[in-house]
């Protein structure tokens, strides 16, 4: 193994003078085509401006010249202050104006072109400050350097008045306050504190010993982020809510004169792989070479260990695929390299190849060594990978069976029992909607209180919908197909029976209220369970049912594919009017409907047994490549960290038996 080297120490003693600022070209292009430089002119783009400045300060820290970075968020502005060397203020040798003004107003200028002042950098190679300046309505640059306090203002990338300088500064560093230009970022109002917190948090983990602070200008509250645990601590932090296989992560380190690669990895009992990757502290949200090489090395190691332990036969069994090897896998990659190459100016994807040639083999060898020395952990991980393989086969069978059962016109209980039985393990964690108070409240609000009423929650799951009526009825029964859900609902409802909604095990005219939620779309021939519900209700009895539906015709086929990939059992993608018709054609009347839109975390929703890793990938791709006609009526957001939040249109219906 090669000893990791960190070339940053080589640059730490270097000076940083005006002549180090190299001028390459002008700045106007940025305002003409901002998307090319900061990704978008939406909120994400405005946040990108802030990250550019924070990364410039992180570059100072990586050069060993800065220990504290403070970010202040205010009404439409942000301020980034560090205690680094301060941008040089002396006149630039060829430009004849202060070097810091060159850095702020000329594209492709800055200290990172000369290789003399910095080793490894995260900043935009000269687009950083000038780019932020060009896209800011106003920017105030303050520099504390050599006993001087230097201040200069800019408007939309050009200087606004002469710089002021006074003596008596006792500190050193740079402070930049900027207001993203509303002419460019037309929808931007203010920086999202939560999003900024996450970004600073990861930087604090990646740079142990550096203190990052996030301050709210209005409240004065300051959050201090300083960690000594590094990437291992970061992974433990990310896995706080997960059940990890083994306590300590596996560590992989390798490097050469051009780069150092450090990764920590750990499998969990979850499904969705989560790999956070950084190149010089830049969050490469779309991965790239470093991520590919890690996945490949891990997969090859798992394959070898499967053969060595006799779990798979090299001759007859299919090779382990990447998606099988990394199901439930979590990792943090901290890559530092001298010349990072990114696919775009926003740096979402790393594309260096030559410098990383040794990484795959190092991952393979070090994972093999770590696991060979820990038979207990090895056994858990290999078991998990084999489970992923059998789940993939099972999911294929579910999709096949659903056709088969329809041909036979028989409801195949076994398929549903298996799917929902397994899901019961983490039911409440599996989606936001399940325990969403306002949504549950909408169900309860449609109910006319009757202390003597007997209620039934069909396909009750964990019983939360039925439980929302408790105290307003005399008794709540539950009905579910799976023994696991029956046990879970037993803790909430008065009495729970195991049974099938196509043949509800109660006599006619038994209940005053029947409720259910997000069930009928899973059932072939939904008119049959609707008829059963009508049968067990007393005349005048009420049926309350919640269903997530498309916003209209334009997002229907897109949503159909997302939902079908998530849950192969889906049989119907109801439009709002279809659902209405299903109830009224089923013999109900007096229809009322309450609508509520709820943000759902797609990452959480698809982290589930019933969704294969390929389908998870395809669901993400569906959001990234959503058709314009669907986007126009169906809001969703993809956060800078890659998380997807989708707005779901919930319709809660109340109907009565005549």
């Amino acid at each position, binding site marked *: 193994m090669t000893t990791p080297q960190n070339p940053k120490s080589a640059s730490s003693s270097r000076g940083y003078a005006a002549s180090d600022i190299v001028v390459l070209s002008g700045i106007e292009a940025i305002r003409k085509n901002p998307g090319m430089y900061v990704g978008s002119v939406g909120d994400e783009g405005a946040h990108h401006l802030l990250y550019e400045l924070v990364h410039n300060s992180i570059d100072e820290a990586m050069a060993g010249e800065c220990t504290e970075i403070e970010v202040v968020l205010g009404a439409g502005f942000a301020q980034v202050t560090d205690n680094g060397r301060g941008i040089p203020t002396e006149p630039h040798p060829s430009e004849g104006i202060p070097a810091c003004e060159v850095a702020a107003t000329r594209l492709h200028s800055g200290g990172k072109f000369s290789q003399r002042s910095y080793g490894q950098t995260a900043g935009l190679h000269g687009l950083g400050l000038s780019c932020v300046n060009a896209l800011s309505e106003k920017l105030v640059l303050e520099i504390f350097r050599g006993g001087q306090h230097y201040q200069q203002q800019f408007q939309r990338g050009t200087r606004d008045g002469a710089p002021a300088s006074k003596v008596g500064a006792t500190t050193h560093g740079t402070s930049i306050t900027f207001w993203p230009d509303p002419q460019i970022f037309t929808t931007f109002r203010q920086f999202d504190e939560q999003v900024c917190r996450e970004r600073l948090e990861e930087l604090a983990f990646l740079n142990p010993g550096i203190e990052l602070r996030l301050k709210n200008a209005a409240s004065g509250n300051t959050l201090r982020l300083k960690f000594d645990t590094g990437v291992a601590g970061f992974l433990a932090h990310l896995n706080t809510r997960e059940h990890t296989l083994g306590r300590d992560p596996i560590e992989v380190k390798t490097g050469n004169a051009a780069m150092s690669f450090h990764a920590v990895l750990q499998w969990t009992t979850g499904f969705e792989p989560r790999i956070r990757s950084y190149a010089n502290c830049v969050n490469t949200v779309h991965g790239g070479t470093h991520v*590919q090489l890690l*996945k*490949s090395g891990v997969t090859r190691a798992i394959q070898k260990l499967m053969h060595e332990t006799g779990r798979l036969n090299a001759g007859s069994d299919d090779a382990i*695929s*990447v*998606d099988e090897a990394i199901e439930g896998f979590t990792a943090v990659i901290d890559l530092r390299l001298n010349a990072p190459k990114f696919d775009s100016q926003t740096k979402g994807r790393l594309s260096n190849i030559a410098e990383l040639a040794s990484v795959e083999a190092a991952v393979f060898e070090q994972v093999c060594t770590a696991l060979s020395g820990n038979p207990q952990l090895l056994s858990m991980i290999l078991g998990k990978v084999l489970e992923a393989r059998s789940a993939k086969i099972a999911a294929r069978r579910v999709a096949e069976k*659903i*056709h088969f059962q*329809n*041909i*036979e*016109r028989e409801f195949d209980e076994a398929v549903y029992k298996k799917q929902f039985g397994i899901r019961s393990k983490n039911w409440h964690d599996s989606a936001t909607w399940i325990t969403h108070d306002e949504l549950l409240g909408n169900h309860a609000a449609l109910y006319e209180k009757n202390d003597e009423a007997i209620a039934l929650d069909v396909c009750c799951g964990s019983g939360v919908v039925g439980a929302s009526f408790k105290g307003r009825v005399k008794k709540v029964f539950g009905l579910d197909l799976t023994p696991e859900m029956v046990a879970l609902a037993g803790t909430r409802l008065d009495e729970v029976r195991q049974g099938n909604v196509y043949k509800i095990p109660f006599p006619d005219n038994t209940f005053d209220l029947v409720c259910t939620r997000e069930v009928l779309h899973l059932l*072939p*021939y939904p008119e049959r369970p609707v008829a059963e519900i009508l049968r067990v209700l007393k005349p005048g009895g009420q049926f309350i049912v919640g269903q997530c539906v498309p916003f*209209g*015709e*334009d997002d*229907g*086929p897109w949503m*159909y594919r997302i939902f*079908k990939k998530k849950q192969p059992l*889906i*049989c*119907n*993608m109801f*439009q709002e009017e*279809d659902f209405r018709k299903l109830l009224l054609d089923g013999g109900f009347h007096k229809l009322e409907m309450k609508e509520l839109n709820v943000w759902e975390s797609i990452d959480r929703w698809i982290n589930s047994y019933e969704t294969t*890793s*390929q389908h998870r*990938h*395809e669901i993400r*791709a569906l959001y990234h490549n959503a058709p314009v*006609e669907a986007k126009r009526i169906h809001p969703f957001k993809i956060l800078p960290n890659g998380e997807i939040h989708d707005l779901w249109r919930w319709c809660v219906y109340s109907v009565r038996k005549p």
Partner: protein
Amino acid sequence: MSAGDLANTATQRALVKSFTEEATLVFRYLYFATIADFEGLEGHAALFRELAEGGLNNVHGCLDYLKTVTDPDSQIPLGDSLRNLQSVLQTEIQQFNQLYPDRTKTARHEGFTDIASWFETLEKLKRAHVQKLKKLEAPRDDAAKPEIGK
């Protein structure tokens, strides 16, 4: 032979067939690229996308000739946007009125309720498309008039 004589020739039929094949290929390549992305096969994904892009040119190249005769699907002569609008409207209306309802029935009859629901979802999308296209059809000076069906 001049281009005007292309109608009802074996060459025209060959162009229609090439048009369909090439169009189908474009969308297969794009679908397969997503799978290659998932498998981490970046080289496959890149080549599939590249060939899809080229395929689009091949599809349009066939239309360059076919437009001198008729639209390969609607059989309506192509030309300016007013004519082309008639051509796509005819396909979308037919899909909405007849093709998807028939397909829904078939799938339901054979017990594929999920696929029947998929066809229904497409039928509704087609209804939305027809409404949007009909708005374009309305002459500009009539734009203020209430639309038929509203």
